[in-house]
């Protein structure tokens, strides 16, 4: 009994040190990556604004008649007023909540679905892999936003539907990435070693292959957050946003601005810049993570 414990302990210790090493290593590389730092600043702004919206927003986002419709930016209303005389800046600030919330939930749901499919496919292989990957091919054959449009069109408008739609456009991509990394890891030396000392296939998959395959998935999920924010706004822009027209959502706000392009161009810029900042943030962080998590890409 004592020997088993002793025999296991060093192994665990090595494993932990190795995994901590990867992350600490990646973090120190990430800290030296200037674009990634800039990305993190953008994300911090985005998240802070979303969380502190009630404090930061100067006005009630739904209170109309604060001044003339389409009033241009002024010292009182930094981003001007919209058609109903609502404060545009307050609406953009509150809109951050929806974008962040929908983005995170949809990517997480997509990760769960895609992760399970990818793990089964790459971990079990054989006919399971064939069937699941054909299904993924089918999903990937429909261009992303069109799939999302289709899902929202059929399930009806609403935040849960939007989240599900964006999740379903991401899930097949995650499944494919995880499966790919698992397949590559199957032939890795440490997997062969683990198999040769008699580890079961479930243990090998969970303890050795998945943790190593996660890095690619984390990068993909970060980049997917950028696409999710854009896709959610895109659905809103196409009129498939939250069903309550009063909801401050960036894409829906842009649709309203198209009617008044001539009179009130400021209505494009505030929500537009908000979307761009959050997308740039996640794109830069994703690229930075990719570079720092993959030691081979070290410059």
């Amino acid at each position, binding site marked *: 009994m004592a020997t088993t414990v002793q025999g296991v302990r060093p192994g665990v210790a090595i494993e932990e040190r190795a995994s901590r090493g990867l992350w600490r290593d990646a973090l120190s590389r990430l800290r030296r990556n200037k674009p990634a730092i800039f990305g993190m600043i953008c994300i911090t702004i985005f998240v802070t604004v979303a969380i502190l919206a009630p404090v930061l927003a100067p006005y009630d986002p739904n209170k109309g008649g604060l001044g003339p419709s389409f009033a241009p930016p002024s010292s009182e209303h930094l981003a001007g007023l919209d058609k109903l005389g609502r404060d545009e800046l307050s609406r953009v600030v509150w809109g951050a909540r929806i974008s962040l919330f929908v983005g995170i939930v949809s990517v997480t749901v997509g990760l769960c679905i895609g992760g399970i499919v990818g793990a089964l496919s790459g971990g079990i292989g054989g006919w399971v892999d064939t069937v699941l990957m*054909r*299904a993924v*091919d*089918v999903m990937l*054959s*429909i*261009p*992303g*936003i*069109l*799939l999302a*449009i*289709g899902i929202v*069109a*059929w*399930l*009806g408008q609403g935040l849960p539907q939007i989240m599900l739609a964006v999740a379903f456009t991401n899930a097949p991509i995650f499944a494919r990435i995880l499966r790919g990394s698992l397949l590559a890891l199957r032939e890795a030396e440490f997997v062969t070693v683990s198999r040769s000392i008699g580890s079961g296939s479930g243990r090998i998959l969970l303890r050795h292959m998945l943790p190593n395959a996660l890095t690619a998935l984390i990068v993909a999920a970060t980049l997917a957050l*950028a696409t999710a924010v*854009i896709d959610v*706004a*895109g659905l809103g*822009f*196409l*009129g*498939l946003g939250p069903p309550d027209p009063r909801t401050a959502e960036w*894409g829906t706000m*842009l649709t309203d*601005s*198209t009617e008044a*392009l*001539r009179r009130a*161009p400021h209505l*494009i810029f505030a929500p*537009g810049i908000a*979307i*761009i900042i959050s*997308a*740039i943030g996640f*794109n*830069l962080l994703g690229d930075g993570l990719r570079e720092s998590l993959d030691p081979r890409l070290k410059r």
Partner: protein
Amino acid sequence: MLQYIVRRLLSAVPVMFGLSIILFAFIHLLPGDPAATILGQHARPELVAAMRQRLGLDLPLWQQYVNYMGDLLRGDLGRSFVNNRPVLDDFLIRFPGTIELTVAAMIYAAGLGIPLGRFAARRPQSTGDAIVTVVSLLGISVPIFVLGLTLQYGFSVQLRWLPATGRIDPRLTIEQVTHFMLIDTLLAGRVDAFIDALRHLILPAIALGSIPLAIITRITRAAVLDVANEDYVRTARAKGLREQRVDGRHIMRNAWLPVVTVLGLQVGGLLAGAVITETVFAWSGVGKWVVEAIEAHDYFVVQSSILMFAFIFLIVNLIVDVGYAFLNPRIRYS
């Protein structure tokens, strides 16, 4: 080569089959009754039942699927609930508009992206390289609708250089033969109309091409940098070849592979992006049609157009794969 093409063609069959099942399931298993939707909320139940019968919705599910597949294989995509016209007819009228737009966007993206990528790779870490990197970052971070609206405001509202919406000045009447505006104007012998159509094409093409431009620039830069470090490039330089020749013969020939692949992969994104671009620029194409169909709950139009989009996407992927195999002998024999 032929064997490879046949094999790839056959592998697309199960995907199309699966797709047809998913789209069928969408219509028939999810809540919502097309018959009730067509007739409106307050229709009498017996009318709804009659409509269900007319649409074949009262048959067992498997039989509905067989009928649907049978129609599909005969090229019958159903009729629009809204105007009762065959979906395929409307699709064929609108598709040229989308092709015109996507081809223009692709020309813009590849025509600018490949030289930009080569330029950036020539002097990595230089200021020029940094600028190109920032531009390509903006390309993937600025949504099409934001860029589109900004372009409209800048070039149409403020500068008045280019028209903001539509495919041609509505005052010009051009006989629609091919439904490609650029071709129809030329067929009519109207150079002024051709130039007008071209002017209408510029802003939507730039908006739609921005994402592929960013990706093509990135990939070209990476591919050229990758090849430039190869031993045979050093050898070519060492034996005294002129830089121009090293660049054209040794670097670009090998860097083309990933670039061509990514060009093909962009087509799916362009088709998806066309949905939003066409809405922003009131461009009459399949994308705008789909959005209008969704607003009108025109089920068959939505179902069929998504199926057609996916079909085209698969065909393009197939062409890319075959082209790739043609360029890279290693793929063919594996």
